[in-house]
């Protein structure tokens, strides 16, 4: 291709892939860096790196967007970040080894999976006190809250179950056996389905939220890759409920899944060891945290293309985008 043409194509491409324009930021937890990178979503540059404490993993924004919570596994704490001033405003005790956290839709309760104990715990976000805990299986990790806030789902990695818990009564409603090493749970925005990834099982199980029965499975097959290397971790469902982007860990790919048909539409090559991801509030972009290549990939959802990668801290793990409560 002649040089002029290449320039022309480059200009055309950059025009086609206009980057997200939000007056909001993405917060990336860096597991090894003990920090949170704040990514400006307009310029897609790191505008600040916050030191937060030991082994930050699960990160989530409050529904009103005023607080970002990050779980500090090795400190047994949760830190709070003010997304306006970009300062760490405090920490509170969150039980042993908190891994993933979610906030209730009313912003009052924090749900925590304590990986090193067999509990799903509940914290009052006003007093920061422990409200109670529900015994679940061995190594709880995945966590999802139904859109109506009534049900919490926790997955346990060694027990291989999705535990449905009544959020108010803190009582177990059902224990659903899923596939091997379930790492993540996500409700569809209409609250009718729960998608649970199985890292070792290599698939995603879809549970009917009402009957709590497995109704479907999403299978992955990346040409040229062995099934052992396809290890689904994060599941992110768009706010409009059309797309599920599933991170495939060491396969270094995101699977773009059509929620309706359960079919993988495309595998997108992102950075190495992709853990978790997040949609922008308008569903136009997905950002992924790539644990080994220390960067964040930006995916244009309409084009199904990776349009940029941004270096962040050491071993990025999870992302929270303010103004975009996870479905």
């Amino acid at each position, binding site marked *: 291709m002649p040089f002029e043409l290449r320039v022309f194509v480059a200009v055309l491409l950059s025009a086609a892939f206009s980057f997200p324009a939000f007056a909001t930021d993405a917060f990336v937890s860096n597991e090894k860096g003990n920090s949170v990178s704040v990514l400006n979503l307009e310029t897609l540059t790191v505008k600040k790196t916050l030191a937060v404490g030991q082994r930050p993993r699960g990160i989530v924004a409050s529904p009103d967007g005023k607080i970002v919570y990050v779980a500090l596994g090795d400190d*047994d704490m949760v830190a709070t970040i003010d997304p306006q001033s970009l300062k760490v405003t405090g920490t509170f*005790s969150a*039980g*042993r*080894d908190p891994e993933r956290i979610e906030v209730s839709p009313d912003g009052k309760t924090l749900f925590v999976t*304590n*990986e*090193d*104990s*067999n*509990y799903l*715990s509940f914290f009052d976000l006003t007093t920061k006190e*422990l409200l*109670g*805990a*529900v*015994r679940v*299986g*061995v*190594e709880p990790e995945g966590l999802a809250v139904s859109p109506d806030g009534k049900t919490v789902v926790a997955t346990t*990695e*060694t*027990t*291989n*179950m999705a*535990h449905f818990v009544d959020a108010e009564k*803190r*009582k*177990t*409603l*059902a*224990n*659903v*056996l899923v*596939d*091997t*090493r379930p790492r993540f749970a996500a409700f569809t925005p209409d609250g009718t389905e729960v998608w649970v990834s199985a*890292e*070792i*099982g*290599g698939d995603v199980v879809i*549970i*009917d939220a009402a*009957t*709590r*029965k*497995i109704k479907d499975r999403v299978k992955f097959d990346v040409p040229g890759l*062995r099934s*052992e*290397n396809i*290890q689904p971790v994060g599941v992110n469902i768009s706010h409009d409920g059309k797309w599920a982007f599933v991170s495939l860990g*060491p396969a270094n790919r995101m699977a773009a899944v059509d929620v309706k048909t359960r079919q993988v539409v495309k595998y997108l090559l992102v950075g190495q060891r992709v853990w978790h991801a997040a949609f922008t509030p308008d569903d136009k972009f997905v950002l992924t945290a790539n644990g080994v290549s220390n960067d964040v990939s930006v995916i244009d959802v309409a084009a199904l293309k990776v349009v940029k990668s941004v270096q962040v801290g050491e071993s990025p793990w999870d992302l929270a985008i303010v103004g975009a409560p996870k479905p």
Partner: protein
Amino acid sequence: MAQRSEGANLVYRYMAVALMAGALFCAAPARAQQAAQGQDAEAQPRQKITIGYLRRAENRPALSRLQTPAANDGMAGAQIGVDDDAVTGEFLNQDFELVAKKLKPGEDAASGFAELAGKGIKFIVADLPAEVLVEVADSPLAARTLIFNIGASDDILREEKCRGNVVHVAPTRSMLADGLAQYLIWKQWRKWFLVLGSHPEDRLWAEALKHSATRFGAKIVEERVYEDRGGARRSDSGVTMVQKEMPAFTQGVSAYDVLVAADESAVFADYLPYRTWDPRPVAGSAGLVPASWDPSNEQWGATQLQQRFEKKFQRFMTPLDMNGWTAARMIGEAAAHDAAADAFAMKAFLLSKDFTLAAFKGQKLTLRDWNLQLRQPILLSDGRNVVSLSPQEGFMHQFSELDTLGTDRPETKCRLN
């Protein structure tokens, strides 16, 4: 672990709340299939899964006092596995129990086995030497049991002497050797100086290493045998003696990259690092050692398992413990999938596509259908940290990269009936 005491206190505070919550678990589905389908609890009787554990009282030697095996080596791992199974069992209306039988010196293994089988135990985890394991597997009562071999790494048990009622959890010598060899090849250390002990098991280990060298393109430039003259492993003048002996023993070898030691009997290998005549790294039975587990492993969520183990047993988790844990978890997985009624149902499940075990090694473990050997990655440890995990990148296989470790299907001499 000390700095975690505050967190631990909090956990105890949870307990009271959780115990109350536990009482409400009666709403949990009764059986695995119901749970999988999310059906409500029927009045199902509780299922009890009893796991036997058979071992021979053995004094395993060690040159370093840090490696002296604990009295409950292996057993402790199986117990943690049973504990993990029991947590899942709470939700599935299943109870798990471990019944241990330790053979006294000279006690007949078959009768010890019969004692467990006579109690109606169908699944037996065995930490026995190869010849005893075969004897037990061929005893009449064993026909209706499934034995999980966690202690014997002998390839012959998976080949000429393979049995349809023995599942092998322990990796073979050939798997361990291949795991090590792949790393040494990746490191471009292709010229090996092989030092082997004078006991039969040392020779078997050396044979496996030699086979790996041929398989992956390493060259054994020289081979020396270290004769065990039966002296005490410890003496008051030990260090001084060793410092004189080992450099002399390793003198005059043509150019080599790495000394590979085959010393299962723990007679000399631990004396080699830092004492070779030429400054060379040591691997095999000392230095960089291949194993099914290492207490330093904290990848792939292993930290949680290590901490569960250390909290309960106040010591580190060994490879034999890991084999015990894995065996108990295989049985637990089968139970969760309604395949623990008898040995035949369990074996069928373990051989099916539904069986995949997560064992903190970065990928699923499955069973080789041609000889009932568990496929697994091999950890390489320097005694302080995990250095690497094999299979190494680039060692390809048409079916599973894990099958680049050990005897593969086309080469097997096993004929299961």
